[in-house]
């Protein structure tokens, strides 16, 4: 399959299982890449496409759950579908808490797997989109001066210019100027736009940051 729009990674130490899963996905029209161990996957160069990971829980060395945690901590947000020979509750809880799309026990049904893969890829595409929007906003946010950042944080909470001026100990006119610059720098057409943007950027952290500044 040339030039795939998305890809499925399969990590399983059992070659038979690995090949079977891979072949099943292949027959369903997915592009698949397989790995024998978590380490092998972690060290691989993967194409920048919407992707998902089918991960065996019981891997020698670094286990599936460990790999999940490691990927998350290193900022790789790839949807994970767990496969296990035997699932117990603590294992399942840990996997789902870690953001797993699905937790399938072997032997699994074909449709379950394919559905899970579809869902995972959808999530990844969405995620990727979200991730690209957020990074644009973050870039814009990065152009603000500290004073402008402070003004932004207070504006989205719904305060009037006069109130913000009082809060920051300056004049209403100065706030008005800062506010205009923020709107321009953030490319926000309206206050509502600005508010949605700050939500995406997790405004709470901004609040915390303002606290920290003081």
């Amino acid at each position, binding site marked *: 399959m040339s030039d795939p729009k998305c890809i499925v990674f399969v990590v399983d130490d*059992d070659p*038979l*299982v690995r*090949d*079977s*899963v891979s*072949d*099943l996905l*292949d*027959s*369903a029209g997915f592009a698949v890449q397989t790995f024998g161990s978590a380490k092998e996957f972690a060290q691989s160069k993967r194409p920048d496409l919407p992707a998902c990971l089918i991960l065996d*829980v*019981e*891997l*020698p060395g670094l*286990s599936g759950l460990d790999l999940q945690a490691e990927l998350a901590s290193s900022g790789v947000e790839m949807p994970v579908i767990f*496969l*296990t*020979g*035997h699932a*117990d509750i603590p*294992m399942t809880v840990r996997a789902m808490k870690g953001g797993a799309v699905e937790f399938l*026990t*072997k*032997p*699994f*049904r*074909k449709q379950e*797997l394919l559905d899970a893969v579809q869902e995972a890829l959808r999530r990844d595409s969405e995620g990727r989109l979200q991730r690209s929007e957020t990074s644009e906003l973050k870039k814009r946010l990065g152009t603000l001066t500290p004073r402008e950042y402070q003004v932004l944080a207070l504006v989205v909470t719904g305060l009037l210019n006069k109130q913000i001026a009082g809060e920051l100990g300056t004049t209403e006119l100065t706030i008005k100027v800062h506010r205009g610059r923020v709107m321009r720098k953030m490319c926000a057409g309206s206050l509502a736009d600005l508010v949605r943007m700050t939500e995406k950027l997790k405004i709470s952290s901004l609040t915390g940051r303002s606290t920290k500044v003081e």
Partner: protein
Amino acid sequence: MSEPSTPQDDVAVEASIPEGAAPLESILCTEELRRRPSRPPDYEKESRALVALATALADSKSNILQTLAETIRDVTDCDSSGLSLLTKGDGGKRFYWPAIVGMWQPHVGGGTPRNFGPCGDVLDRDCTLLFRHFEQRYPYLMPVTPSAEECLLVPFYVRGKAVGTIWAIMHTDRRKFDAEDERSMNALGQFASLAYQTLDSIDDLKIQIAARETAEAALRERATGLEAKFRRLVDANVMGVFTWNLDGKIVEVNETFLDMVRLSREDVTSAGMRWTDLTPAEWRARDELAVADLKATGTVQPYHKEYFRKDGTRVPVLVGAALFEKGGNEGVAFTLDLSEQKNAEEAFRRFEQQARSIVDSALDAVVAMDADGIITGWNKQAEQIFGWTRSEAVGRRMSETIIPLKFRALHERGLQHFFRTGEGPVLNKRIEITALRRDGAEFPVELTITPLESGGSWTFSSFVRDISERKRAEQKLRESELNLHNTQAELAHMARVMTMGELTASIAHEVNQPLAAIIASGDSCTAWLLNEPPNLDKARAAASRMIQAATQASEIVQRLRALFKKTTSMTAAVDLNAVIDDTISLVRHETHKNNILLRTELDPGIPLVKGDRVQLQQVILNLAMNGIESVAGLDAEHKLLMIRSTLSSPGELLVSVEDNGLGIDAEHEDRLFAPFFTTKPQGIGMGLPICRSIVEAHGGRLWAAKNQPRGAVFHFILPIPARNE
């Protein structure tokens, strides 16, 4: 009469008449004598001669021969006269001349041969002979001078038997002998004979008297000696002695006899005790026989009997007796106290009996054999176990009696080897062998053979024990051991099932893995076939994977089933490394789950061991699970379970399962392998005891130790079978 002296003058004694000697008749002139004119008898002269002889006889016996010679000369008026007597010492081979008067007087002591001389001729013809120059026939007389012109000889008789001659010689022809000379010579000869006979009788009598005196003296001496000896014997109290008479009276008795029968002298003598009273009734008949012997021969050969003691008990004695005089009434009895001897005999007999009864009551058959292989001893037990009685067995060949046919040649060879070398590989030790019963049945025995040299020849004592029972017991023991073994196997199975219960997750994983592959591949296979056009290559590959996975699944199920199955122990060659690998696949899930690092260091060169694969896997599994549990609860960075296999020594294989967990509490160390000891809430405390019993059943050892820097390590060793096994 004293013994005549032997002739000192041993003059030319011719054994026979020499050539050219004159014939006897030519020198005899006896007929002429009778024809010669005879002078008248001179009776006066004759009686004077007889008186002289009688006087000599009364005076001295030694003179009688001399007197006789003199009277002959007086009566015959001859030149020489004398007498010749046959020698006594040599049985009369010669005549000697005890008395001569006249011219031949110097020749006293000479003599002539019996069979070759004038005297012999006289005795041969038993009559008076007159010789003229007898030296013409008998040359040995030539030197006897002066020569005899004529010699008149008459026989000399003693008790009617000629013992010699008396003779008168004329050396010249001054006068010639006549018939009167012959008559007077005969008369004198007769008288001399009588005189000599009387003398001889007196002498004989004297000798007889002397002999009798000597004999009597000797007898007296002997009698006194005997009596003294007898007395000493009586008094020495060496033996019991009493004298008695045939009427039954005891006359005299010595101390020893009194002691023997514990009677006082008064008891015996004053009460007039009879020796028959001392004899128990059953010995009286024997006594009567003895009395009969006494009467017939005067003595009784010693015989055994008993006497009553005063207290009524009996004393065994040896008694002999003799009459003082044959045909008499009194005698002596000698008795020897045999109590000691009897006691000793009794003790010996008892000992022998005891020994015999020990031998007989011995559990072992005791069989003795001589150097020729013949049975010489056979106790009761031997009768019982072999079926031959003692009398049947003794004298038979040992090998043909109790040794099975197939061992006989070996037995004979062994015996020969022993005689040659003095060595035998089966001697003086306990061996197990097969023996033969009389009915032909063969049975196992334990045998000890002891050779014994005595009197230059060998005997062999064999102690034989029928061990059929023991063998049966051993068989039973083996069976019960087998039962125990089976019980152990069941217990092991139980423990295994419980362990497997803890491993459900791992087992599920193991089984589900291939199932997942099968189903997934089945799906993909279907998909490839439904493709437009169907992708047959991929479908085929998927089908192949399905087969592969299904095979794997089947193997796994089979392996697991073995662990669940209730099996009796099966011994086979086992590759412990493979067993460890199998075990790891079972526990891997547990180690993953608990974030435990599971490592193995397996020596690829270890040889196979002999054992039960399932049980050995159970041991490793159990130890691994224990290790996992001991580290699982820790909040540690590096939780480790390590399994090693190595060749610890040339004959042993070592497996170690170590963890770095909590280790073993010191207070639990002692009870670690005790049944029903457990520190786990869900445990039944049978895991380690069962592991240990499995390892020991394989001839190995299982033990625990501290791991460094922390944790526990369990080791077990298994023997490596020799190559040829």
